[in-house]
């Protein structure tokens, strides 16, 4: 089905709770107003209502899951801003701008295959939850790679149950299969009737996109990242080059973050 576009706005909400789930990685939880809705693949710009000492701009975060009446964001501390947000305590008033961007289109398909690199796992629990509800018989697979066992996010029973199969990879082999997700998928790129979804570091997405092209797979949807100042289409910061210009660029915040692999220049 094609997602209903939810009403985008500015919300001031207290950080409800946080939980560590891996090295440098945590859930941020909020209690949204009852009428607020969002779709897998969309994101929010998060900042504190009180100015931050270290991060002047907000940071974009994919909606990680919606459960128990809460919005969850999966946060990994990489740079200045995310490291700082990770130190915030529950009760801190935060500004959430969103939901923003184009969500994953959830077409009917016998197999839904998600490939995640590191924090690229963020949008997939929610996507799987929606697909599971909408297409009960469909097979939902997750291929999830991390640098090592420390950064690996252990899924809960409930989260695991969203997938028919979870295959795990680490670069150093300290957990699951050694090597990258893309290599790990070796012979499966050719399989027919698979709806592909990807999210992760640019090099991984580039490699995956190349594979998909090699096997003439069309319609794969990848959630990409680019630096954002506003997140809602006014600053023109978040450009990604299009495969077939003109226009030369697309704004990732409004014509993304979810893009069909064939549409952008990798």
């Amino acid at each position, binding site marked *: 089905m094609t997602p209903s576009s939810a*009403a*985008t*706005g*500015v919300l001031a909400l207290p950080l409800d709770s946080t939980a560590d789930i891996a090295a440098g990685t945590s859930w941020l939880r909020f209690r949204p107003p009852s009428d607020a809705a969002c779709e897998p693949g969309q994101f929010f710009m998060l*900042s504190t209502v009180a100015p931050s000492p270290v*991060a*002047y*701009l*907000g940071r974009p975060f994919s909606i990680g899951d919606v459960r128990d009446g809460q919005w969850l964001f999966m946060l990994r501390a990489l740079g*200045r*801003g995310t490291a700082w947000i990770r130190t915030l305590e529950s009760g801190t008033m935060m*500004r959430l*701008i969103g939901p923003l961007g184009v969500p994953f289109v959830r077409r009917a398909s016998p197999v839904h295959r998600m490939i995640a690199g590191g924090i690229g796992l963020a949008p997939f629990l929610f996507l799987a939850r929606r697909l599971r509800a909408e297409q009960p018989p469909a097979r939902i697979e997750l291929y999830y790679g991390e640098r090592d066992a420390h950064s690996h996010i252990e899924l809960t029973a409930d989260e695991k149950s969203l997938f028919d199969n979870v295959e795990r990879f680490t670069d150093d082999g300290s957990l699951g299969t050694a090597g990258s997700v893309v290599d790990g998928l070796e012979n499966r790129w050719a399989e027919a009737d698979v709806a592909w979804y990807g999210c992760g570091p640019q090099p991984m997405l580039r490699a995956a996109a190349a594979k998909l092209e090699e096997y003439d797979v069309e319609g794969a949807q990848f959630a990409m990242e*680019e*630096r*954002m*100042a*506003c*997140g*809602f*289409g*006014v*600053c*023109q*910061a*978040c*450009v*990604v080059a299009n495969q077939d210009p003109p*226009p*030369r*660029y697309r704004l990732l915040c*409004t014509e993304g973050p979810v893009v069909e692999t064939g549409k952008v220049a990798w």
Partner: protein
Amino acid sequence: MNERLVVTCGRITFQNPVLAASGTFGYGSEFERFFPLASLGGFVTKTLFVEPRDGNPPPRVAETSAGMINSIGLANVGWEAFVAEKVPDLKAIVGAARMLVNIAGNAPGEYRAIAARVESDRERVGCAGIEVNVSCPNVKEGGTNIGCDLDQFQAAVRGVREETSLPVFVKLSPNVADVVPFAACAIDEGADGVSLINTVYGMQIDIEKRRPVLGTGSGGLSGPAILPIGVYWTYKLRAAFPDLPILGIGGIATWRDALQYLLAGAHAIQVGTAAFVNPLACVEIIAGLGRYCSQRDTTIAELSGAAHRGGRLAEAAVWTG
């Protein structure tokens, strides 16, 4: 509408002194979901050229202490697409807010050309005036930009003035030794007023990659970091030209920041970067100024330039360190 907030800048009257700055509010429609643009004093469009521009290669922004640098490169849809695709929405939502069309070109001649287009489409567009962005590269002299070269600046402003009878505000660059001669030139060329400041040259180095973060190397600094710079030039211009309509810009995030500019001599102000972090910044500033005026039983018009009444430009800016 709060009468205390009404301000007149030359030939344009704004219902309040808070305008959306160019390039930070897109073409308007993006903000409508956050608050009604019609509640603003005015709205300045993203800079428009005759031809569309793709803008610069990414990364285009980097965060700095209390600010950011950008190298968007004046990406814009071009005049035709603006009129055909953006104006209908914008006109519908802008309401009582006055629309300023911000224009630029790659050389003085292009300023004349875009001004002519605005003039001929002025009814369809429904704009109250033009803001001229002179912060474009000086093709003649690499490295600097039109807004920093008095001859090119004069040629650009003259071209615009000759092509249109609309109110013209020239948006000054702070990347000069002194903005006064540029303002003087704008006045001589018949501009109705000035707006300032545009962004300040800045750069950030990625210490991991060991090269500039931005795709073009450097960019323009904006945000709270530059507030004192904008207030300084606003004050200096008001002292030099007591009757010159001034739109103050640079680092404004709160009504207190806005008031600093108004007291320094601005007749109205523009909010840019702050709207990225808090899309409701303009609304909060309008409310704050309204409360202040009621509490002190004064008006924005009365407050504008009040910091000069003590008459203390004295040694302005000369003895620092």
